[in-house]
């Protein structure tokens, strides 16, 4: 082991080449993973922040929040269902938001206004007063401050920002959180064809100690199938794009890790060939094939760790300097650690290609060369 590390430190040249390629691959993995995480987070924040266990849509909406409508009567049916501890309505509308001091701006922020009753993570239990909202802090990056007024939609409906919340975005857009009354007023003004009346789009349901799956079923039975109720987790996975993006990106990441494995295999096979005489000598003076192979793995791991570290560093820097909204990108510790782990696995398995050759080097060949 010491021998292998000494070689690495004193003869870095032959390892640098493999290291460069591995660094590039590491950057790719960090980019892909960060993109995926960024995309998913910006689509699902609003749902992940919800307090309840269940969400009920209307059955005809194909689990689409935008097309779902729950009537007041169905809502009271749901709230009286056994197992249901609390029910809150949820409404949403996607609009452009202009800063209060620039009503003619041709470049509004893409926002989605939510009306809530059961407070999501980070929001006050009592929804803000009519005309007041909490904003997702991505808007702070766009220059919005507490106390500012935002003008929503073609009708420039004014809302005042009372504070910020984190990680509550929906469909890639910044979210604004207000009372249901605020939502209804803004929707009626800006979407004449879609007056909510006393309906909401969905119901957030808290089940307390009762098992959510059972309660979900009971709810849908109680409404004679007019509602479809899912766990919030499942509803999150079914948000448009989430499942597909995750599957696709994971496939790409998987194949890229495979490429890393092949690259390690390739370059370390070359390095092994170059060291045949050296290995022969070491075997002659008493090193076992496994000792030598262990040294090889140690070197592969060391090179991979350096490449991975550069990738991690680049990802962190990239996330920090990225202007908000340019590319959806997040550098989460879990993802970064996961990528490092994958690269190490690829590295160790890549070395396996050289195992046979290292074991088969004949010490007797060191004589009479």
């Amino acid at each position: 082991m010491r021998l292998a590390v000494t070689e690495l430190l004193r003869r870095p040249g032959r390892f640098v080449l493999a290291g460069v390629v591995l660094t590039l691959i590491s950057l790719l993995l960090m980019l892909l993973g960060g993109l995926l995480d960024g995309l998913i987070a910006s689509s699902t924040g609003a749902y992940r922040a919800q307090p309840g266990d269940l969400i009920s849509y209307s059955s005809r909406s194909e689990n689409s929040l935008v097309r779902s409508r729950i009537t007041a009567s169905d809502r009271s049916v749901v709230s009286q269902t056994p197992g249901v501890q609390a029910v809150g309505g949820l409404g949403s509308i996607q609009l452009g938001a202009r800063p209060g001091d620039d009503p003619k701006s041709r470049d509004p922020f893409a926002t989605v206004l939510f009306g809530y009753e059961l407070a999501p993570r980070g929001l006050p239990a009592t929804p803000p007063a009519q005309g007041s909202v909490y904003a997702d802090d991505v808007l702070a990056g766009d220059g919005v401050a507490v106390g500012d007024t935002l003008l929503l939609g073609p009708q420039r409906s004014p809302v005042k920002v009372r504070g910020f919340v984190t990680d509550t975005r929906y469909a890639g857009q910044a979210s604004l959180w207000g009372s249901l009354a605020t939502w209804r007023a803004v929707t009626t003004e800006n979407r004449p064809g879609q007056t909510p009346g006393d309906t909401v789009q969905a119901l957030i349901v808290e089940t307390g100690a009762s098992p959510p799956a059972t309660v979900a079923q009971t709810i849908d039975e109680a409404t004679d199938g007019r509602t479809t109720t899912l766990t919030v987790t499942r509803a999150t996975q079914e948000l448009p794009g989430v499942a597909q993006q995750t599957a696709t990106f994971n496939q790409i990441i998987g194949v890229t890790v495979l490429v890393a494995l092949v690259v390690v295999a390739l370059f370390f096979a070359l390095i092994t060939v170059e060291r045949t005489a050296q290995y022969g000598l070491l075997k002659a003076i008493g090193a076992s094939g496994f000792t030598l192979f262990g040294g090889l793995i140690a070197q592969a791991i060391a090179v991979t760790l350096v490449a991975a570290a550069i990738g991690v560093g680049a990802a962190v820097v990239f996330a920090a300097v990225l202007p908000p909204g340019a590319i959806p990108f997040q550098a989460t510790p879990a993802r970064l650690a996961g990528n490092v782990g994958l690269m190490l696995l690829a590295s160790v398995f890549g070395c396996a290609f050289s195992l046979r050759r290292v074991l088969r080097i004949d010490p007797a060949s060191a004589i009479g060369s």
Partner: protein
Amino acid sequence: MTSSSSTATATGERRDQASPPALEMQDARKVYEVAGEDVVALDQATLSVAAGEIIALVGPSGSGKTTLCSIAGGLLSATSGSVVVGGQDITGFSARQLTEFRRTSVGFVFQSVNLVPFLTARENLLVVDELAGRAGRKGDAAARADQLLDELGLTARAGNLPGQLSGGQSQRVAIGRALMNEPDLVLFDEPTSALDSTLGDQVVKLIRDEMKARGTAAIIVTHDDRITHYADRTVHIEDGRVDA
């Protein structure tokens, strides 16, 4: 000088004459299969080397000198026959046992590739001990290495890489490395072939002095007449057969 035999670990103690022979090779035979045919590299080789004896092994190319040394040093297993080195019967040893045997009981000085190119002279001496793993390590390796370097006149060069050493200096480091594990037998493969006559002479004398001082046996494969003068005995080998 006829105390009961014991292999001492202190530097420089002689093995006495009652020590087991360094090598007892009996009817050793090595057959390779090349492209479907049997090639006999060594044919009924019988050779005895007493403790502390220096043998010059002489023969034309392809005569089996390398094969014989390889078998004696545990680099190869004989196809048939028996091999006993320093009292250890290595005839049926597995590859792993042979590796262990080489690490503890023999030394090699090869013709060309001898030193690990990225280790200093001193580190090259210590590498054998490092390969021993925690259990087999001897605590005095560093001291022993320094002593050997001193005896070989290499103290000033201890921190140099092989690329910075002359041919003769490299050869001496190799000899030091071969002696680090206090072997029963050291095998030399053409140690003077790459050296000019003055240097070659120095190296040969050095080999003899070091071997005799420690009572370590040696088999030296060579064409060089000087070595045959310095050896206790010359053995001829031709077509795989030993003329003992």
